[in-house]
């Protein structure tokens, strides 16, 4: 019999991370994400892992990156203001290609905003928050079960692509309790970073393998000497002003993920085949959207449901094809229009895109989305 738990989203996410092999957590208390740190503080020492509460959010991710450099799978978790503070060091992890998982349990902003209320206002910050160009991998779970599963996937992607992977949870999901069926160990894949096999004297820390455009990663203390820097660097890892080397490194930071876009992109659909209207939603809002879609189906309306599981990379090609067929996409979001910009980009004007924004600290009611569906379908 599989183990069954009745967990909060934050607790589920933390346990998923541990199942993925997370053995380092550096963090700082912030609502509504603190339960993740609390679970880690309790569980990691039992697993011979490391938990440390740092002096601020910036140090929280710095220590996490340090833990990863020393060879441990590492995670930090935060919420709005802390997510802003972590952006610079996330940039270092992008540039230096250090795997880490960063969780943002979204709350209302800007500034201190609404610490105990849901919002989806950080989804563009996830993509563009750290200065400079880089590829982004960001997941948006929408159930407590999925918090567990996505934590595992996020670690797999971080380890595979050697960069930060983000989990954009939200306040409702983080604090909601649901049944979680714990997958049996061995029933899900676990990926670990590729290690160098060459003699340490020949190690070029940032020379990618031809096969996957990714360099193997050594850990400090395992016999390889190498240099990590946030400066744009060559294949030795040394800072460079050579235009060719700059162009090569900068492009690889994008290409190493973009080339595997289809391996990463995930989404879920329901009753989409004959749909004339698609409701596209993510995170907790997807729950409301699905309820409204099912109610409208009961009323005989041809309405489908599309939920991006990865916000970044965005499932743009998939949406384009479906939207063109359907004609209209409704995008309810708890912000003034963020992922809708990606939907508009994806559909290339081949379908109408209808915005629904709610920024009052609450979720939509299914009836509100249903009303919009009826208005559009009419």
């Amino acid at each position, binding site marked *: 019999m599989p183990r069954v738990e009745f967990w909060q989203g934050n607790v589920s996410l933390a346990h998923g991370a541990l199942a993925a092999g997370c053995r*380092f957590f550096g963090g700082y208390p912030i609502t509504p994400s603190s339960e993740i740190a609390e679970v880690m503080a309790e569980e990691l020492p*039992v697993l011979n892992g490391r938990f*440390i509460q740092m002096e601020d959010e910036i*140090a929280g991710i710095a220590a996490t990156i340090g833990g990863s450099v020393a060879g441990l799978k590492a995670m930090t978790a935060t919420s709005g203001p802390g997510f802003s503070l972590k952006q610079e060091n996330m940039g270092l992890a992008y540039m230096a290609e250090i795997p880490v998982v960063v969780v943002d349990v979204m709350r209302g902003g800007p500034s201190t905003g609404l610490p105990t209320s849901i919002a989806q206002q950080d989804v563009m910050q996830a993509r563009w928050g750290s200065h400079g160009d880089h590829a982004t991998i960001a997941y948006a779970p929408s159930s407590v079960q999925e918090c567990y599963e996505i934590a595992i996937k996020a670690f797999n992607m971080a380890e595979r692509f050697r960069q930060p992977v983000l989990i954009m949870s939200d306040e409702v999901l983080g604090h909601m309790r649901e049944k979680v069926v714990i997958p049996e160990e061995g029933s899900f894949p676990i990926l670990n970073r590729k290690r160098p096999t060459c003699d340490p004297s020949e190690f070029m820390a940032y020379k990618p393998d031809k096969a996957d455009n990714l360099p193997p990663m050594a850990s400090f203390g395992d016999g390889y000497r190498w*240099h990590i*820097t946030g400066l744009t660097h060559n294949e*030795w890892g040394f800072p460079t002003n050579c235009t060719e080397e700059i162009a090569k490194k900068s492009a690889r930071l994008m290409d190493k993920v973009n080339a595997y876009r289809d391996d990463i992109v995930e989404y879920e659909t329901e009753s989409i085949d004959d749909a004339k209207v698609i409701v596209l939603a993510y995170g907790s809002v997807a729950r409301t959207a699905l309820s409204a879609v099912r109610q409208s189906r009961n009323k005989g309306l041809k309405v489908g449901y599309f939920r991006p599981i990865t916000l970044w990379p965005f499932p743009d090609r998939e949406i384009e094809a479906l939207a063109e067929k359907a004609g209209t996409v409704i995008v309810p979001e708890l912000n003034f229009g963020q992922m809708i910009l990606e939907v508009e980009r994806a559909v290339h004007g081949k379908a109408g895109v209808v915005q629904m924004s709610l920024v009052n600290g609450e979720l939509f009611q299914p009836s509100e989305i249903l009303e919009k569906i009826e208005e559009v379908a009419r």
Partner: protein
Amino acid sequence: MPRPEVLDWLRNRFFPHMWCPGCGHGIIMHALLRALVASGKSREETVIASGIGCSSRMPGYLDACTMHTTHGRSLGFATGIKLAKPELTIVDVMGDGDCTAIGGNHFIHACRRNIGITAVVMNNNIYGMTGGQASPTTPLGAKATTAPYGAIDPPFDVCKLAQGAGATYVARATIAQPLLCEQYIKNGIANKGFSVVEIISSCHTQFGRKNNRRTPVDNLNFLKNASVPLAKSEGMTPEEIEGKIVIGEFVKRNAPEYTELYLGLIARVRGDKV
């Protein structure tokens, strides 16, 4: 000429270095390498971390496990590395702006935790790389590009700050005493907990040109003449000490080291026999 075992620690591929001719930081780098060699450390088991600034470029030149991080945050990264692998020797080289301005919070908390890292604070009283702006250690009245009429902000005393925050080894020397620099860094590395070695360096390019210390020799002479050993300073009046640099070992005490405590906690919760 440096000894061959010291030269082994250099990444020749990385040279020439970017420091100005006559910069004080090279003296500190040499002292650090002599200290590491004298301590019997291996390059594979030694991590040199840094933040941003002239001083923070040092790790790139050193053939060890080196990490050049973000401005002021290096102790956060170093803390993560040390906690993950306590067996590693960790030296964090930082400038005065890196350590006491943008990184001040991380600095005092590393002192408080007493985690086994040696911070070598290369204090040249100025932001050199960005063009000579005032730092939290720019002396009162000294000129900088952002203090053209003389600094009015009282400066930090890095050693007192470290002592107050809980560091278990705190010492200061200047680049005019390279052997003392080596000795103090070596003692810092030997200390189990958090060690702070402040080394007063010089930046004739950015600080000196505005403060009548235009040449490297002017700076070395100034530091030599201004240095007062701790024992001697104890018999001096505050007026006599004014403008002097007190050198010596200010703190040497035993206290539990952070990663030892954490490993002890692991053993306790796992029910292992300690």
